[in-house]
């Protein structure tokens, strides 16, 4: 005889034997009709707003935010790199200028 490999499952399935069918209340159709009407008027509004609705969708808002943050980060990184280069360049040119007068910038 084959051994039952899922005894716990079978035991728990016993607990749902004789489960009663759960239905909705008598006002289900009324709520359904209200939803259908609301959707119909919503569709009409949506048609009118179609041109505006897409930039307001969360995916677009989040996407724009991420893009702005990325551009900001890039600009900041770029700016600090430029600053370093500028300061190196300006220090060396100042040094050169000082040397041409037989001086050193450290003496200032």
């Amino acid at each position, binding site marked *: 005889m084959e051994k039952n*490999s*899922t*005894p*716990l*499952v079978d*035991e*728990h*399935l*016993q*607990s*749902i034997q*004789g*489960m*009663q*069918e*759960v*239905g*909705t209340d008598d006002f*289900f*159709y009324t*709520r*359904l009709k209200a*939803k*259908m009407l609301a*959707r119909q008027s919503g569709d009409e509004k949506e048609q009118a707003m179609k041109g505006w609705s897409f930039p307001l969708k969360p995916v677009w808002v989040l996407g724009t935010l991420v893009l702005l943050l990325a551009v900001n980060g890039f600009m900041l990184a770029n700016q600090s790199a430029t600053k370093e280069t500028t300061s190196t360049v300006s220090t060396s040119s100042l040094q050169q200028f000082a040397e041409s007068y037989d001086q050193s910038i450290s003496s200032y």
Partner: protein
Amino acid sequence: MNEQELIQQLKQGNEPAFRWLVDNYRNRVFHTVLNILQDTNEAEDAAQETFIQVFESIKNFKEESSLSTWIYRIAVHKALDKIRRRKTRQRLHTLLPWWMPDEKKSEEAVFQHPGIAAENKEKAAILFKAIEALPEKQKLAFTLIKVQGMNYEEACEILQQNIKAVESLISRAKVNLQKQLENYYRER
């Protein structure tokens, strides 16, 4: 009214026919989506969405299956949509917990099926929690056949799978559930 007449009247947009359909199927549809979703509010919403879809798509119904199978198929798809959206919300909650604080409560909620006798509620809740963690297809097949008590033939038509595939899903679901239940009782 036979099924053919009902379909014809629905295709013509006859409201009494639509009401008759809703009144005759609402409880079965609600019960099915409730078993899949394990949430009364979401089940009500999915049942409503099902009938709206029926109303809007009846013109495209090719009568390749029975009307009830077609309605059940729509209901199962609506329930799946809700599960997918719920998973997306849960993932978002993991990433941004301050954004959707209510999501944590829904993750931790224990489903008490209203159709189950009081003395069996605790065991049933443990089983439903384990079913909730199953992969999507296994969950659907197991719920329709083992929880809802649907026959294999009908479930195959609704899931659009052959009998071997559904049997395999049930068998894998049972193995997974057994492991989950063993873990549950070990950790308790």
